[in-house]
């Protein structure tokens, strides 16, 4: 078994800790339900649900870019933090608006942050955790006191609508965190982050230049389950926690079958595993912060919860991190909590409790 490439955090550094202090999410309004896509894939809606746990996914309109989603999520995260200024912007995405330049500088400019360092980071579905670790590094170095980490993918742009392996899975979304310098002992302080990559198996998930993303399903399933479980164990151990003390586990929402399998391997009961995939599909880099935002909106995540996050994605890349959830109010769309067309349920469960800032 290969070990992680890096485990870093408050235990091994002298500088300030990185503390999550803002969370924002943005989803396109349009929801695409299984019933709309199943005929074209030669399957029925229940086939998609049983294979993936997904009932609907968000899809951005043709004119909406990754940058647009990133700006919306970034603005909301800044609002959630109560402070519009940061010293750096990191955008985790594999669907940038252009091959060159990176999308982050334009996003930063639109957020009223011209002049701050801004760059893209490509680590696919592990992008958010890679972004958090980069932000933590900048903070620990003293190069930044506040960093905006945005995870945004217009992943449908890479998806072959006729591929039954990938077409049911993916949904467009963005979500973002503000991370600030603080103390390792305070709520929101990021624990040691486990990051790893192994390109030897990179062909399991590939989108060539100009082509669609292809994925070897069973192989990806096995890597995802094994790697996320392994990284979760390592992150918990590095933090000095026990798995029995984890209140909420937030796996990358790759496929409900994968998250269930990881939960089983970690011995975490369903009550402690946060799921959001039913409503939004696999939203690539955005899935962990989007799930956190949704869990807060539905009351499943509270300040003081010991949270374990784990991700796996193309590369292959994977990672995990811990945080004691801080007392903050996320800003964003919360599907499953009111959006017409979400989920597998009838409209009678919807309410009007939309939480939007624009």
């Amino acid at each position: 078994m290969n070990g992680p490439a890096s485990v870093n955090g408050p235990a091994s550094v002298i500088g300030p800790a990185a503390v999550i202090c803002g969370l924002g999410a943005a989803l396109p309004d349009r929801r695409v339900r299984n019933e709309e896509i199943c005929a074209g894939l030669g399957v029925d809606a229940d086939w998609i649900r049983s294979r993936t746990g997904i009932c609907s996914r968000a899809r951005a309109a043709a004119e909406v870019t990754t940058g647009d989603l990133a700006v919306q999520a970034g603005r909301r995260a800044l609002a959630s933090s109560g402070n519009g200024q940061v010293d750096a912007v990191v955008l985790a995405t594999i669907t940038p608006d252009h091959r060159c330049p990176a999308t982050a500088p334009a996003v930063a400019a639109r957020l009223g942050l011209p002049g701050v360092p801004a760059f893209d980071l490509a680590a696919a579905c592990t992008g958010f955790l890679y972004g958090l670790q980069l932000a933590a590094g900048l903070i620990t170095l003293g190069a930044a006191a506040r960093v905006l980490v945005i995870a945004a993918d217009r992943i449908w742009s890479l998806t072959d609508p006729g591929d039954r392996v990938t077409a049911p899975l993916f949904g467009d979304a963005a979500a973002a965190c503000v991370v600030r310098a603080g103390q390792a002992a305070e709520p929101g302080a990021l624990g040691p982050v486990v990051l790893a990559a192994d390109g030897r198996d990179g062909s399991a998930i590939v989108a060539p230049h100009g082509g669609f993303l292809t994925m070897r399903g069973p192989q990806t399933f096995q890597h995802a389950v094994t790697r996320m479980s392994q990284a979760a164990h390592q992150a918990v151990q590095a933090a000095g926690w026990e798995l029995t003390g984890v209140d909420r586990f937030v796996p990358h929402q790759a496929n409900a079958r994968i998250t269930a399998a990881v939960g089983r391997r970690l011995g975490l009961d369903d009550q402690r595993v946060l799921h959001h995939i039913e409503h939004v599909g696999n939203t690539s880099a955005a899935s962990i912060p989007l799930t956190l935002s949704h869990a807060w909106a539905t009351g499943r995540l509270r300040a003081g919860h010991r949270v374990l996050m784990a991700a796996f994605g193309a590369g292959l890349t994977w990672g995990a991190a811990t945080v004691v959830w801080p007392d903050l109010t996320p800003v964003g769309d919360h599907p499953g909590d009111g959006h017409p067309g979400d989920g597998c349920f009838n409209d009678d469960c919807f309410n009007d409790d939309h939480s939007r800032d624009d």
Partner: protein
Amino acid sequence: MGAVSTELRDMLAVLKVEPGDCGPDTGLEEAGLDSLALAELSLLLAERGVQVGQDELAATATLPALDQLIASRLPAR
């Protein structure tokens, strides 16, 4: 006729797959074992020290044949 071995039934329980009544021709899909379930079954077997790929499991096609393959690989008790 067609009883699934305790070993396989225990592993399927971990996967939350209930095969129900099975006959000699019961297919894997029919028993609730799609490609992802076989991928996870392969992982469970690896934890028991038995290396059987998902492709090899899928090639058995029927539940009794799958049971037989696994029984032939598991260490004798």
